[in-house]
């Protein structure tokens, strides 16, 4: 087999430059979860069962804050709602894949696998359908192996970080690193400003309702901003 032409290995090769960004994220996720008091088995179960960094970190942060179970579940699923969007735009490219193979491919869906695959499909409109799903599988499986390895490394040294180092502060910092690149237009800025403001104001509310209210208000503010100025230039 010529690995240079095999779409699976092309996927593996294309995702490699992204791994230096993914790996520390995975290490931090494993380490902060362990420091928050979760057992190594639970941390690994989270990494494999949820397999989505931002929602894993949010779960740990909310567990530490003593949030009630339904707020934790709702927040994590809200963060992962973007996968519904990804799923919708990937669907036409996966239509040829038999159902039993679509399930594992869906489980492996990440921001990186999505972005790389959509870019490739865009540049090669005539590519055979079987090549598309194999390319996607190459990016997605590499992400899974890196994510699990990084979480394991995090579990390895998470218990040894002194509490005085405020490692938990790495969680909002990670969210900040994910948030800032999104702020490219006025409606998105409004979503973040209103979402953050309402969440701070409502932080004392029971059941961590401030978070859910903040997210809802932020989305509403963005939609209103968009409706008022449909083609507002990016600031």
């Amino acid at each position: 087999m010529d690995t240079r032409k095999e779409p699976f290995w092309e996927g593996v090769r294309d995702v490699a430059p992204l791994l230096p960004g993914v790996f520390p994220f995975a290490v931090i996720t494993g380490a902060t979860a362990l420091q928050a008091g979760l057992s190594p088995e639970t941390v690994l179960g989270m990494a494999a069962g949820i397999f989505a960094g931002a929602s894993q970190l949010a779960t740990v942060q909310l567990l530490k804050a003593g949030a009630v179970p339904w707020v934790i579940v709702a927040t994590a699923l809200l963060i992962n709602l973007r996968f519904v969007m990804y799923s919708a735009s990937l669907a036409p490219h996966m239509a040829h894949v038999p159902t039993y193979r679509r399930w594992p491919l869906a489980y492996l869906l990440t921001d990186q696998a999505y972005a790389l695959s959509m870019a490739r499909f865009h540049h090669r409109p005539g590519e055979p359908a079987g090549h598309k799903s194999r390319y996607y599988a190459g990016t997605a499986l590499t992400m899974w192996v890196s994510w699990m390895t990084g979480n394991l490394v995090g579990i390895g040294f998470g218990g040894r970080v002194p509490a005085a180092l405020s490692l938990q502060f790495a969680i909002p910092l990670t969210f900040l690193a994910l948030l800032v690149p999104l702020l490219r237009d006025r409606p998105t800025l409004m979503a973040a400003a209103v979402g953050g403001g309402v969440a701070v104001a409502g932080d004392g509310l029971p059941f961590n309702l401030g978070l859910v209210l903040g997210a809802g208000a932020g989305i509403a503010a963005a939609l209103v901003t968009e409706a008022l100025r449909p083609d507002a230039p990016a600031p």
Partner: protein
Amino acid sequence: MASGTLALVILAIGVGTFLERLSFIHLSDRLVLPRVVRRGLHYVPAAVLAALVAPAVLRPETALALPPGNWRPVAAALAALVAWRSRNMLLTLAVGMGGLWLLDGLL
């Protein structure tokens, strides 16, 4: 939280996230979302991330806390600046954590 409840929470998030990922890949293109829902979904990440960041930075122990008692807002602002200029997560984490350690240690 009891470990049984925690396991259920993780299971619920895991199954829910899988269903979110599977949704359209499974349904193929038999379903089309209305425009307002698609636009709304587009803004979910920014709204949720900001709603997670702001309280963790400004109200780390529930009460509103500003410098000099709490240096997190300053460290987070430095980190945001680095994130904006560099788009580099590792550098953002290093500046944010390093900034907090320095400010906590020096001031």
